[in-house]
């Protein structure tokens, strides 16, 4: 697949790099914590919030249990509605299908609304190599596209950029005033620029938030209206979805539309919650169902990860994500869910990601579908600890385990430490291998351990 496939992603180094700009790091942390707080307020306004989360978990688990059945039912209903349903085994087949459809319809200018799946499958470069212009129309995605950058968050793709950086990017591509970093000004400029792209486009590509098996329809949620405008003008619409986006019926949508935006941004609902059931008059509507590893995930102990509705709440709440930035994960989907998914794809390359987690479990509790994210990360450590990069760590841990298993030996080493520590020069204690001591002072052992104090106490009791 992609060329850097086997290169080890060192989250620790990447995070360290991110934290080298403390002001930017602080801003990133605060901006996302603010989103988390908006989520809290929105969730608190729904008295039955926890009940909704349990319902969402149940519906997703049920659908996954019968995924094959629901997929076939969906296909049948969607075809009856005039939607052409196609299946793609993997990313390569998906890219090929999209390119073929576009070429068959003579489409060379495509507007695309947000779809993590197309990022996952590397669709843009594939189409661009075939002379097809793809314009990402979500503002955040357009910013990173113009900058030649990558999204750092699944809901807020440009959260790693400050407005001054956006002003710079826009001034070189959209000829705006480089000194004007006002978000309204920049958004207006993007609106004008993208409006032209919308009017010129001969095809629209969208993602899918929810597909309805019973109705053969699908739902796309945006705030900007880019999926609606994009699909309203050209005659060709290609919707792309991973197999897991399915739910049984529109009657289950209440649960998800109530949870999604509140979890994502703290809005009660997205500005546009759009339902597509038939192509527009004279138009053509394709829907591509993509597997790309999902069926394997379904059969594994990580099946629950397929319940994710990509709200981004686990990222916003993650204390590590907020302080290391989305790019530190080296994945399309970052944060807790991204780390868990990456481990199922390439445990060697992404071995550091399950460890980029303090196991605080905050993500589990904000997740609208109640995925036990931290448990999955913990379980994945059983595999990822075995990569060559962690050989030293394992050796150290095994030595510690040996020591701790042998009380006499352990006591002796602590006694040695107690004697040694006050005598060693500081530079020797705080050497470069002392990762604890890089940022913190070491605690010092007490003059007498509790075990000794306890023994003395028992002795005194007995004498009395």
């Amino acid at each position, binding site marked *: 697949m992609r060329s850097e496939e086997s290169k080890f992603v060192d989250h*620790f180094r990447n*995070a*360290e790099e991110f*934290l080298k700009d403390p002001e930017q*790091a602080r801003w990133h*942390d605060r901006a996302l914590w603010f989103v988390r707080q908006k989520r*809290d307020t929105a*969730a*608190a306004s*729904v008295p039955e*919030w*926890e009940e909704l989360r349990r319902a969402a978990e149940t519906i997703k688990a049920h659908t996954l249990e019968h995924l094959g059945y629901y997929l076939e039912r969906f296909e049948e209903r969607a075809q009856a509605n005039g939607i052409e349903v196609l299946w793609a085994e993997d990313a390569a087949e998906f890219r090929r299908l999209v390119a073929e459809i576009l070429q068959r319809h003579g489409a060379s200018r495509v507007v695309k609304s947000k779809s993590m799946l197309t990022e996952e499958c590397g669709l843009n470069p594939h189409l661009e190599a075939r002379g097809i212009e793809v314009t990402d129309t979500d503002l955040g995605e357009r910013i990173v596209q113009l900058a030649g950058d990558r999204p750092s968050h699944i809901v807020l793709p440009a959260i790693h950029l400050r407005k001054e950086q956006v002003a710079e990017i826009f001034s070189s591509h959209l000829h705006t005033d480089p000194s004007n970093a006002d978000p309204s000004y920049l958004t207006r400029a993007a609106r004008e620029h993208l409006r032209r792209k919308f009017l010129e486009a001969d095809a629209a590509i969208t993602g899918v938030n929810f597909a309805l098996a019973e109705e053969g329809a699908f739902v796309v949620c945006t705030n900007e209206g880019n999926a609606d405008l994009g699909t309203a003008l050209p005659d060709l619409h290609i919707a792309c979805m991973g197999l897991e986006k399915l739910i049984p019926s529109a009657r289950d949508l209440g649960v998800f539309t109530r949870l999604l935006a509140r979890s994502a941004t703290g809005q009660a609902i997205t500005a546009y919650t759009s339902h597509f059931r038939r192509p527009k008059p004279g138009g053509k509507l394709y829907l591509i169902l993509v597997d790309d590893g999902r069926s394997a995930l379904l059969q594994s102990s990580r099946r629950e990860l397929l319940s994710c509705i990509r709200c981004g709440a686990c990222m916003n*709440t993650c*204390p*590590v994500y907020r*302080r*290391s930035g989305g790019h530190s994960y080296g994945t399309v989907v970052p944060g807790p869910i991204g780390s868990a998914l990456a481990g199922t794809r390439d445990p060697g390359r992404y071995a550091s990601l399950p*460890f*980029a*987690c*303090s*196991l*605080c*479990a*905050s993500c589990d*509790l904000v997740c609208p579908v109640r995925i036990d994210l931290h448990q999955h990360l*913990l*379980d994945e*450590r*059983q*595999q*990822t600890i075995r990569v060559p990069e962690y050989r030293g*760590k*394992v050796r150290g*841990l*095994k030595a*510690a*385990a040996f020591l*701790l*298993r042998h*009380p006499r030996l*352990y006591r002796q080493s*602590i006694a040695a430490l*107690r004697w040694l520590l006050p005598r060693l020069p500081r530079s020797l204690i705080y050497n470069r291998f002392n990762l*604890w001591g*890089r*940022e*913190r*002072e*070491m*605690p*010092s052992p*007490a003059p*007498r*351990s*509790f*075990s*000794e*104090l*306890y023994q003395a106490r028992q002795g005194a009791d007995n004498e009395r």
Partner: protein
Amino acid sequence: MRPTVALFVPCYVDDFYPQTALATLEILEAQGFRVEYPQPQRCCGQPFINNGLLDEGRAFATSFADLFEAYDYVVAPSSSCIGTAKYRYEGLLEPERHRKLAPKLYELCEFLHDVVGPERLRLEHPFPHRVGLHNSCHALRELELARPSELMIPHFSKIEAVLSRIEGIEIVHPERDECCGFGGTFSVQESAVSAAMGRDRIADHRRQGVEIMAGVDLSCLMHMQGLARRDGTPMRFVHVAQILAGRVDFE
């Protein structure tokens, strides 16, 4: 017959924080329990289990069960060690063994709250100070000793219910109930993020005018204490058990 409580002292507490262990012992005895300290005690195995080294984890789980399963209650001044034995030994011990062991395990405040009851607590030592309460993740989100801000459920806090029985104490909460960044080996493997998280917690407490931070997990406190000492931040750290037992002695 008075029920017997077994005291579990986490490995690093024994050597680095004996006063906390002593305070735990005293506070349990003061409630009228017969307290035993069975030996030899070993690590709960958390560092190994949390790194996916399950063979090592299994060995520690087994010696823990060997040592403690005969008791009515096992109490420790640590939510993370108790959480490990309660939830992470599943799959490491025989299911029946774990099923019997798990309900006997209590973090100290949890025990004082659930078994003794906050109203019946015998606490003799006032603590007339403003105290910032650090709710550790294991206490909050694993043992469910208080409502974490993520969940939309009624507010409660077993730790606060117990601690507020202390005369003169003023309990203060930081703005965020976020992780301090200790996380076991996370603190070294991800030391940069870990330190940033810890410094943010300290600064949050400082903004609330706090100079004494209390918690139920010494590991979190040890991490933040190390940071505060390095930075010269005026913040003192104390385990809740020591406040309860009147055993606070800031060097």
